[in-house]
């Protein structure tokens, strides 16, 4: 066989493989959107489940997920950004920063169910928080910490050193330079990390199974020590439990669609932000 023909065959195969992967994504998205779109209505989004979860909406689960997103971001975002600043601006290039980086990577590679076990042992049992928003937020916060640290680090790394030296030359201290120059410039990219974490937190199930998620709880939480329902756990429960499949399936499709929409929205806005500000920084 001629080497040109071989190349043609190989390249066609790669094109087809790429099409398959894209096809899989659109198949999954399309399937859930197609089945779920008819279920979603204002009523579905704003009422509690009724009739033993065979009717009604998913309002408490949406509220629960919002609480968890807010809680984990409040806990993890500031400390993650600070950690990123330390790694990129202060730590230098020695063994310490290498060690920290490895640890951050390791934390990011721990399976989510292990975070669930840890959260249960430390926050639920040792700190006696019980199954609560705060226990879940701490657990999820730890889970997204590596993501926030890494995006902060990348964002800061992208700022050219000339800006820093310029600031020093004007007599600013290192901290002033970070607060007034580096951080504001890196901020849009840091926010991308924040947005991606929101998407991640809204979809995680295993860490909240034993730290916060309630099977069925129609009332809304009153304090951070309350249990809540959450979208991903709700989807798991109604997809696998229950005997009346014909009644619960539509609710499952609706819940899955809401989850996917959140993730889609977060991913797209992160991308838009990245692209918009990515250009802006370069042409500065």
């Amino acid at each position, binding site marked *: 066989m001629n080497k040109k023909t071989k190349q043609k065959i190989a390249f066609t195969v790669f094109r087809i493989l790429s099409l398959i992967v894209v096809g899989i994504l659109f198949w999954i998205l399309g399937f*859930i959107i197609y089945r779920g779109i008819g279920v979603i209505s204002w009523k579905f989004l704003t009422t509690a489940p009724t009739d033993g979860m065979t009717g009604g909406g998913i309002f408490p689960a949406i509220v629960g997920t919002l609480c968890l997103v807010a809680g984990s971001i409040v806990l993890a975002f500031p400390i993650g950004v600070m950690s990123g600043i330390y790694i990129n601006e202060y730590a230098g290039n020695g063994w310490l920063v290498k060690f*920290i980086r490895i640890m951050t990577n390791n934390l990011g590679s721990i399976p989510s169910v292990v975070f669930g076990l840890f959260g249960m042992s430390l926050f639920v049992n040792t700190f006696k928080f019980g199954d609560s928003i705060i226990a879940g937020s701490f657990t999820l916060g730890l889970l997204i910490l590596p993501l926030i640290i890494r995006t902060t680090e990348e964002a800061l790394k992208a700022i050219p050193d000339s800006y820093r030296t310029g600031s020093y030359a004007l007599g600013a201290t290192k901290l002033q330079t970070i607060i007034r120059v580096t951080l504001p410039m890196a901020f849009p990219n840091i926010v991308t990390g924040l947005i991606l974490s929101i998407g991640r937190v809204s979809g995680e199930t295993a860490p909240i199974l034993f730290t916060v998620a309630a099977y069925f709880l129609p009332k809304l939480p009153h304090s951070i020590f309350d249990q809540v329902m959450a979208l991903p756990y709700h989807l798991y429960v109604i997809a696998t439990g229950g005997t009346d499949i014909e009644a619960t399936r539509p609710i499952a499709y609706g819940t899955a669609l809401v989850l996917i929409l959140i993730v889609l929205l977060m991913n797209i806005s992160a991308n838009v932000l990245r692209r918009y500000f990515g250009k802006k920084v370069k042409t500065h």
Partner: protein
Amino acid sequence: MRKLFKRVFERIIEGLLTLSGGITSFAILLIVIFLFKEGAGLFQSPDVEKGYVLAVNATNPVEHLDAKQIKEIFDYEFTDWQSVGGKDEEIKPFRFDEIFSLYSEEEFGEDYALLPEKLGETIAQNSGIIAFIPEMYAPKDNISVKILPAKNILFSEFFTGKEWMPTATPSPQFGVFPLILGTLWVSIAAILIALPLGLGVAIYMSELAGERTRKLLKPTIELLAGIPSVVYGFFGLVVLVPMIQKTLNLSVGETALAGSIILAIMALPTIITIAEDSMRNTPLSMREASLALGATDWQTIYRVIVPYAASGITAAVVLGVGRAIGETMAVLMVTGNAAIIPHSLFESVRTIPATIAAELGEAPTGGVHYQALFMLGCILFIITMIISILSEFISRKQQNKGL
């Protein structure tokens, strides 16, 4: 004065920054402490249900039984004391509630005060008996009754045991072997599916696609990584499982195969992104040299670029395996979760993370079952740590490959 205040303030902030730099190391330390603290308790727990003892007739020469033997006895698998090293005599398993059919309510006296005595009587009368009774009712000071000493659950039993029956009485079985095997089956099959697909896409993205296609493809792949695992699980449950059941003519569609396919899709983004990155890092001079020698683009790809990126691709595979091993919800929803040693991909399997997620809710806090699940968490933790460090090591090798 103001200047001094400002400098102190700056020092404090910088101190805080330094502290937060250590947050991930601290978190990992905490995770290790708490996982292992709860998990290690397993090996200090008796292999018979807490609060119960096993009693035999004093003439019985058997001194101790391990968890497996106890289970076989109470399952009527072993029927002769010879099979556990005793006399040639029939084993008569005796559960506590059977005592109430032997004696009337009045015979136990007030507040069941005579219950231990009656138990002692029963045990003394049957030389082949083995009685599973609460510790508080165990007959004391009865010379014809021998209480078998409680033994701790053994490390080796845990890892080599072939049965996972955490709620069996009198002796729960914690053999993780089928779970480890199930996890490996599903993950390795997933990578075998994902690797050719992912590598193909990575080559397409780094070598063939134009800038515009690449800009469209990259967010698409990222989106694939962003879909929550529970949604993948749901999709697998309603689409893939029935499809597998129908096309392969199986009685149930919840198989290792379904788990592997879903996991393969979930591992794709990791593999594609890392493999593509390392291929794009191939120095231009190497490509040009190859092309100048008259090689076609394709020859350059598989003779120069792929070998150059080999360690990056390996790192991608290792990380993909890591992701697959730890994945919980999707696998839990589509593999059927039978804790048996798998023989083919078309059988139901149960993985370690799925076991934790499915059972922790029912395991009483601090109990043996709870500890066993934490031990599973420790195993998962160790595996993923090894994988993470391994991939770090491999990709560092890639970085050092300067020209």
